[in-house]
């Protein structure tokens, strides 16, 4: 049923491209009725019966019926459920204002930390880094962050970041870093012991044993953006030889 989309997987699409399913629905009457549901990811939008492209990039597909546009961008647009690194910019009453690099600041209630109650407020100061996920990410509303999951546990979210370094990369690099079987991650793993916090909003926080190593990792990641796999591996090897 969605063969029109399937045919174009891997091609570059531009905003305004459309897929229509109506004509095919008539044909499918003879075939056994299947209620195939299609999931359109980022870059695709439903418009009535049609599927409209609104980002330029390569059309990707995942079984069974997931399609999305793989695009490069640096501006982060919040999406529900994504975890990001935010900077607390203000404390006002019972919410914190958090800057996450989007068009608007998100609000983060003090009650959405693990173990926080009305009496027992979490110790969050202006300027602190928080790893949080979006509970509400609507284009018409103020985004809302939480530092707990649905069962009330932090699971790594919350205030972090003593003695590390925060820097920005493109959203594409973040996705490459977090992808399953990621090359960059496996290269990095062999370098030296370190800790990374990767936000979907393009912020990465690194901490390592020494300041020097932290800086090396930060520079490597930032330059890995524009390198081929070979170049990157060469550079990583060179750094490793220099480090030991």
């Amino acid at each position, binding site marked *: *049923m969605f063969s029109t989309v399937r045919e174009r997987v891997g091609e570059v699409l531009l905003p305004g491209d459309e897929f229509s*399913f109506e004509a095919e629905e008539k044909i499918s009457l003879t075939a056994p009725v299947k*209620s*195939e*549901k*299609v*999931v*359109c*990811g*980022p870059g*695709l*939008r*439903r418009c009535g019966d049609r*599927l409209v492209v609104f980002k330029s990039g390569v059309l*990707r597909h*995942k079984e069974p019926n*997931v399609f*999305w546009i793989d695009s490069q961008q640096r501006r982060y*647009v919040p*999406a*529900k*459920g*994504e*975890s990001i*690194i935010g900077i607390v910019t203000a404390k006002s009453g019972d919410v914190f204002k958090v800057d996450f690099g989007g068009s608007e600041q998100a609000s983060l209630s003090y009650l959405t930390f693990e173990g926080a109650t009305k009496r027992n407020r979490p110790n969050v100061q202006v300027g602190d880094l928080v*790893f949080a996920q979006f509970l509400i*990410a609507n284009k018409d509303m103020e985004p809302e962050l939480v530092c707990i999951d649905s069962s009330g546990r932090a*699971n*790594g979210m919350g205030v972090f970041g003593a003695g590390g370094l925060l820097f920005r990369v493109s959203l594409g690099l973040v*996705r490459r870093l*977090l*992808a*399953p079987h*990621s090359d960059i*991650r496996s290269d*990095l*793993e062999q*370098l*030296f*012991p*370190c*800790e*990374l*916090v*990767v*936000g*979907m909003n393009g912020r990465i926080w690194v*901490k*390592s*044993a020494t300041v020097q190593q932290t800086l090396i990792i930060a520079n490597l990641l930032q330059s890995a953006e524009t390198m081929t796999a070979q170049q990157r591996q060469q550079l990583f090897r060179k750094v490793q030889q220099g480090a030991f």
Partner: protein
Amino acid sequence: MASESVKLSKNLLRMKFMQRRLDAETKKQLEEDERRIISDEHWYLDLPELKAKENLIIEERSFVPCEDLKYGRLSFGGFNPEVEKLMALMNPREEEEEEEEDLSQMQTDITDEEMALRYESLVGSMKKKFATKRERAAQEADEENQKEVKRAFVKPQD
């Protein structure tokens, strides 16, 4: 009945204290009348019926479920053991193959033989439950005899 001899007005019958006296039929009739009045007054838009089409397209705004992205906290080389524990917890995908094996094991978790063995012991205890007093006594005696036989000293062979 009173209603047959003297006709009471409908409005009077509808009053609360008259409700008790009404028999089933008149009650039903009154209710129907009321319903008709309501449905007459009820107005609706003269529009073609909206077809509740099944929506085949689901929107997803995030890359995470599309690309199966991992959790954003990473630790390498044992730098932060807590985070490494978290990584194992939040990224269960790595053990996919093992999980599949587990699933196959689950189906044959208890073999038929094990099941039979288990029920074998149950048969005895259920039998005891339904036995008469005399039978039970006999069984116990038997068991004791058997036990005594078992505990008998066996002379080691030279």
